[in-house]
């Protein structure tokens, strides 16, 4: 785990209370803009690790959301209200990113200095051939309305996705000290998740989803 110190006003500038999160004072509710150096883990005051338990993540999010939500700054200055809105948007983004294991892994890779999905577009060597074959079989099953075959594909792809996610989980917390080569390999794994997601979306194509706006 990375042990970078959070560099920010450690004490509240208004009441001199010790700050437990970089953006709000527990004691007097003074808000602070997000410091440049702070990442999503800092924002939610949680350990910088992939192995998060979703219960404690939710609890951390709710506790901070409660303190900074604009509804609790109704009687304050327009600046305080605007800051609370912006901060809320930022912790909502932090929570949405860290809650989802794939997004969380990608985020850790990003802050660990790994390559982005634009820089490295590769997927594992055998994946493309595998995906092409699967896609053909799915199309066949869809055409013939073979529900059993569709269900079988759904299971296969879900399992493949879970296996890949397990590899990702195993390596994520080692990214901080990983070599460039390992970081690149991690990105390649992440890229393959997208292929599985696309296949699953094709299998679950919901004709109603498109008809939402009338």
């Amino acid at each position, binding site marked *: 785990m990375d042990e970078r110190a959070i560099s920010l006003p450690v004490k509240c500038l208004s009441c001199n209370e010790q700050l437990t999160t970089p953006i709000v004072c527990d004691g007097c509710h003074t808000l602070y803009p997000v410091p440049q150096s702070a990442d999503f883990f800092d924002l939610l005051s949680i350990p910088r690790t992939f192995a998060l338990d979703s219960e404690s993540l939710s609890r951390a999010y709710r506790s901070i959301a409660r303190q900074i939500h604009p509804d609790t700054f109704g009687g304050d200055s327009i600046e305080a209200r605007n800051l609370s809105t912006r901060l809320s*948007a930022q912790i909502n983004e932090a929570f*949405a990113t860290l809650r989802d294991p794939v997004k969380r892994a990608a985020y850790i890779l990003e802050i660990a200095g790994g390559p982005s999905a634009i820089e490295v577009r590769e997927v594992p060597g055998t994946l493309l051939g595998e995906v092409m074959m699967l896609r053909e079989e799915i199309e066949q099953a869809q055409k013939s309305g073979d529900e059993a075959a569709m269900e079988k594909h759904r299971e296969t792809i879900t399992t493949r996705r879970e296996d890949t996610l397990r590899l990702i989980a195993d390596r994520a917390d080692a990214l901080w000290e990983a070599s460039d080569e390992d970081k690149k390999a991690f990105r390649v794994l992440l890229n393959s998740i997208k292929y599985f997601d696309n296949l699953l979306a094709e299998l679950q194509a*919901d004709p109603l989803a498109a008809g939402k706006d009338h």
Partner: protein
Amino acid sequence: MGEKRDIIIGIDLGTTNSLVAMADEAGPRLIAGDAESDDVIVPSVVGFDETGAMQTIGTSARAHAIERPTTTVHSIKRLMGRGFADVEQEIAALPYRVEKRDAATDRDMAEVVIGARSFTPPEVSALILRHLKQRAEKHFGHPVSRAVITVPAQFDDAQRQATRDAGQIAGLEVVRIVNEPTAAALAYGLDRKEDATIAVYDLGGGTFDISILRLEDGVFEVLATNGDTHLGGDDFDNALIALFAEEIRDQFGVEITSPTIKQQLRTLSENIKKRLSDRDEAQIEIAIGNDKVYRKTITRNAFEQMIAPFVIRTLDACSRAMKTASLTPGDIDQVVLVGGSTRVPYVRKRVAEVFNTKPYTALNPEHVVGLGAGVQASILSGIERDVLLLDVTPLSLGIETLGGAMGKLIAANVKIPCQASETFTTFKDGQTNIKINVLQGERELAKDCRSLGVFELGGVPPMPAGLPKISVTFLIDQNGILNVSAKEQRSGKAASIQIIPSHGLTRDEVKRMEQEAITHAREDMAAHHLIDVRTTLAFDLNKVESMLHRHSSQFDETEIEDFRQRIAELRTFAQSCDDPTKINERREAFNHSTLPLAERAMTAALSGSVATDDGDNIQAPPSN
């Protein structure tokens, strides 16, 4: 935080009915019209006279809907924040006149035309809001200036803005826009300490919302919302109306065109819907002119078949919401019903099936949103400190990209407040303006989404094409309303943004309407005042006339003749003069001059020379 603030009221501004709530330490309560009546519902109906002066609001306005269909405005919420083209179909079903607003811009808006006056939908809604505001002020005994207003969860940015504009026109600062199903969940979960997953099924007059929330440690977290802004209990009524109209055509060869008969059919259909909730069949009878009477018996079974397609659409939305939240029916602990249409047994039955649980019905489905608005008001005023609401945006937000696609920036069902940034540049050398078409919706093509308006970035430094970098931040706030800011990256200077709303009012227009609303209210009040003053005068004159008649033996001929003549003169004067003060002055002078007469009549009566009757016992004149 902490200091005592002005009171905030909570308002449920519905398509059919509206309510106003307050909240204090004792919790939320709905405010009734007067102390004697516990009637908290205000029908969202505004009655005008032929000139377009507002006359009545609520129950009394609704009572006149059948006699005065063209000057009685209902269902205005359906037109809020929408373009004329969007609502053309709905307008056909409305008995009052709606036209395309003649604005010198390319904005597309509808307006209601009554006599010589025209009203944008926010102006009509403002009349209802003002009525609710006054109801609250009467209750508190002091002015109220801030409100929470609820809207359907599926309302887009333009519809939310229109609601906020309506508040401002009514003299209310709208401190928060809350989604109706979320408000209902607040009311439901207020006294509950245990964690739970709640589905709120909200079938209103014109809109359908389904929201799924997680209630934990006093935090109400919306997990997913779905719905349809064009699906509601009105569709049930319309199905009945269409059936009746068709049968009348077949049986009598008569086409229903009269607004009065249309309105009668609507009222009958609403009643049938209610009756079939506890009976197996209902009859109607309607005179359609020329001694022809249409009679019909509708069974509950037939009614259910008629409404099934609409109910199934709501159930599909429920399934989509559960899927978004990654939940199955087994995860839902409670289903809360909102909206009058959820009283229909068939709706309850099907909802119970889709969630595999019996809906919670202890809360009045027509009160629960209003109460929730009260809870949110108490959160904002710092009375309720243990509860917090975390809502989501119902629709994806994006921009039109080259080639007319929708470039998504923020996905639907993302927690609000939320923000996204995008960098824009120029296509021509020296270009100093950039136009961005901002969209909401789930479709792939820009033309199939709602355009919120064109955002024009100004003050771009003249540079070769592609060099300027303008970073634009789109922020959706806790009200679900979009705020846009822009910065030129090289200079770090804020770029100016001018917003041309597609279907909304500009800030200046809203300010002007706020002023006009006050002037109109004064004019309308003055008109009412004049009528009242004339009525009082007529009452006084009649009284003197009858006294002269009954006590004629006490007065001499010339006295009587003199008074008769002055009475006639005053009557003519009252009709020709439209200054209430002058009329009142003349009335008072006249009354003063009759005092000796009244005394003589009284003395005579007391001495027993003349028998009095109850006719001139003192009565209170109509108040003015």
